[in-house]
């Protein structure tokens, strides 16, 4: 029997097959064009295939050429650009249709942009305003994500609960996704059992999704169930060609002492990150920073990619990543400066504080380092356990 994931994928593939040969051939029908383009996009998103996702863009462009009012497709393209971290393209596509910036969906993405570009107050206002005018599950989840990053986990979880309350039996994939976010919140605070409960609920809600399995594998690793985690990762990397999962698998194997088995996966991951970057893609800059800083311990390369990332989106995350890269490079003074910028944002996580502690210590600020280390431990006593770079 098919899992929910397989059934949905088959449904999308059926749509694509039915429309592929004629949807974009003039004379076109707006609904068919839109449905086809949307299906191609959905397929790429659900399979987690970045190459496929990049290949959606020319299909959207063709769709835009074929219909008179392509606002929906510009919105889709803005979403795609967001997923690929091309924030200027997000703006450009939102501006391409006058109805988009003022639409509820457009305003929500604008708030996402504000968050990504470090305008935190505007982002929060934007999310709250989006919810006030359009109380949808995804807008609630957006604000929840923001609050989680800014350290109010309890508020974030309440917002996720509210998001779930908006979701119906016809939206089980979305429900499962929110459950994964709630699980991540618990994981970030060391509550492994609770995280596991959320992941199990996600699986019950929408069975067979690699995304759920990937979260479960991380949790197993964090719990020290390395063999089980490795078996699950092995299964996932065979299904989904995502370099970040390959990296996670490689790092897990490294933790397990299986360096020889780990190396091909780490090599694949690096190649997977570099390949789109060499083609001009910016999607994996952040992962390249992590990879060079933490896997290869190569400060020079880490700083190179961190500076590229921060040029795209100057936020606490990219600032902290640069700080970490600079630390790895031995530039402790500059690392401290960048870390202070990140901390000034109000962002709050065990991971951030743990890195801050290290940077402060390296910069000779032992007292501050201890304070951040304590804070990290308070947030998540298990923050040094296996985790994935998200």
């Amino acid at each position, binding site marked *: 029997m098919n899992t929910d994931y397989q059934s949905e994928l088959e449904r999308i593939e059926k749509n694509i097959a039915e429309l592929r040969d004629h949807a974009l051939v003039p004379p076109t029908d707006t609904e068919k064009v839109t*449905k086809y383009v949307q299906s191609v996009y959905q397929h790429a998103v659900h399979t987690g295939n970045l190459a496929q996702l990049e290949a959606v863009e020319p299909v959207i462009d063709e769709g835009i050429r074929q219909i008179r009012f392509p606002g929906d497709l510009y919105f889709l393209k803005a*979403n795609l650009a967001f997923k690929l971290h091309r924030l200027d393209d997000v703006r450009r596509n939102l501006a391409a249709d006058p109805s*988009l910036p003022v639409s509820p*969906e457009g305003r929500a993405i604008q708030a996402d942009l504000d968050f990504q570009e470090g305008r935190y107050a505007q982002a929060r206002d934007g999310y709250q305003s989006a919810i006030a005018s359009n109380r949808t599950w995804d807008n609630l989840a957006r604000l929840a994500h923001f609050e989680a990053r800014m350290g109010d986990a309890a508020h974030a979880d309440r917002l996720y609960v509210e998001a*779930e309350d908006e979701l*119906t039996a016809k939206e089980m994939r979305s429900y499962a996704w929110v459950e994964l976010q709630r699980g991540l919140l618990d994981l970030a605070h060391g509550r492994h059992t609770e995280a596991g409960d959320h992941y199990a609920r996600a699986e*019950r809600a929408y069975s067979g999704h690699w995304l759920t399995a990937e979260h479960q594998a991380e949790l197993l690793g964090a719990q020290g169930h390395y063999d089980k985690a490795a078996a699950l990762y092995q299964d996932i990397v065979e299904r989904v060609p995502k370099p970040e999962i390959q990296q996670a698998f490689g790092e897990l194997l490294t933790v397990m002492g299986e360096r020889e088995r780990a190396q091909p996966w780490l090599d694949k991951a690096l190649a997977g990150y570099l390949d789109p970057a060499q083609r001009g893609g910016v999607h994996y800059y952040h992962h390249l920073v992590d990879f060079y800083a933490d896997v290869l311990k190569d400060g020079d390369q880490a700083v190179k990619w961190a500076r590229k990332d921060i040029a795209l989106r100057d936020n606490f995350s990219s600032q902290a990543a640069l700080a970490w890269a600079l630390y790895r490079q031995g530039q402790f003074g500059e690392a401290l400066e960048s870390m202070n910028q990140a901390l000034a944002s109000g962002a709050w996580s065990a991971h951030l504080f743990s890195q801050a502690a290290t940077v402060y210590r390296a910069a000779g600020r032992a007292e501050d380092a201890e304070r951040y280390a304590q804070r990290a431990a308070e947030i998540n006593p298990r923050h040094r356990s296996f985790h994935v770079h998200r």
Partner: protein
Amino acid sequence: MADHNDPNAVNSIFSDIDVSAADLYDIFGFPSDDTDGGEKVVIALTFASVPEAGRLDPDMLYRIQIAPGRRVMRASEEDQSLGALLKYFEGLKETYLGTLRPFEVRVTVDENNRAHIRFINFPGGSFSQVIETNKSLTLQSPDGHPIKAYIGGRDDAFFNDLPGFFRSINYAPQFYHVPHTMTEARELAIPKTLIELEGNDLFNFDPANPDWGHGVKKDLPPGPLTWNGDKFAKDKNGNYRFVYSGKDAQAGKNINAIILEIPLAYITRNPEHRIVNCWGESWVRKAANKVETIPDDPFWLEHPHVLIDALKLDDELKKYKLVDTDGQAFADAALSEREDNRQMGANNFWLAPHFIKRLAHLGMGFGPSITALGLKCSFDHGNSPVSVHKTFSSVLHAFPLVKPVLFQEMRMPDDSWNPKGLNIPLRRPVEIFIPNVNAIDMDTTGTWPFGRRPEDQVATRFLSVFLDMNADFKGKKYHVDIMNDPAVLDALPLEPKTPPNPLKNDKEFLKDFPYLAEAH
């Protein structure tokens, strides 16, 4: 924060949410002709036949709420000021939100398409039963009353030129592919009208494309989606063109339905209760319930504004989400614009100011077109020679124009609606649309607005609220069906000379339970 994890990752521009089974179509209600063993009321809630006619969606829950009451007799000297009107609405609100405790019929189906029907809190006792779908059955109430029930597929009992109505309000999605994100391009800012506007190429009938709007859609044209003319269109004979065709857009279509015939004695023991108010609701199961793990609800505690509603919900309803309500015909489509956040069912009191402004907006469009045809209009459009697109931000400005519409009695074509010849006041729009319930008068035939019988042409009757019921045509007073009268249509400078909507359904209704015709 690599942020491959934002809701964008799962959100899509087009809803893949199929909740169309929640789309309620109509609620019919009338006294049964079968009075053996006592009076009975027939109530039929119809909704989209999804997944298919005869098969209901197991994620849905349908409610029919029933509240018997007395017939309200009008004071001889009535205060018809805005203040008094709002006070009247406030009184209704207190009744519906406070003292009224409606009884309820609740229906779900299981994965085997068996219906679980529950009768809750009726004076004749609560009970539940699992029944076969698509079969007329007689259930026994705890106090021994036989209740007829049918749950399943039938022919769509609504017969109506829906594209004509959408043409009259310039509703673009019926005629054009309107992008999801182009929210301003729904009801276009073009005057609403019953006859075509000269040069309104966006909506005027196209003889070269007669199916346009009847399933055929065009791409929205470039340029402003407005109309800049100043007169109604006329043909070479000087006739106006009706935006309605009279064709039944629902012909050949099916619905799913919950049809009940309930003894009045089961609903009330008070002989003064001659009105049976009813309305329907559709609820869709929440995702959390689908996985059988209801989250603890800090939500309710954190949000006292919803707590009031939440407290009224029983444990089962908390697992569902209200999607649609249906009480009075056209209360949603015409007066509430079918916005999701206005799905308030009977509790539509907070909509009262909106209702007045919306009615004024419709009147500024329909009114001049009625006058142009030579008919007397109940709405004060200031003798405008052509329909006007005007929105009202102030109820104070709207009310004086709307007042004659609100307070006029809706005259019936003859006395057949009142077979007992009782002193029953004619209903007025102000009483019909708020609260949004189907108020079935058990001493009438239940024809609209005293209920709603399947054979009622309610779409045309709704339009008649804009006709001056005190006027007469060739010595005969206007009435709710006057637009169906061939003599009237023949006399109007109008083409085609057809009633706006079909006069009968494509399939004959049945004389007996379950009344609605079999599915196609």
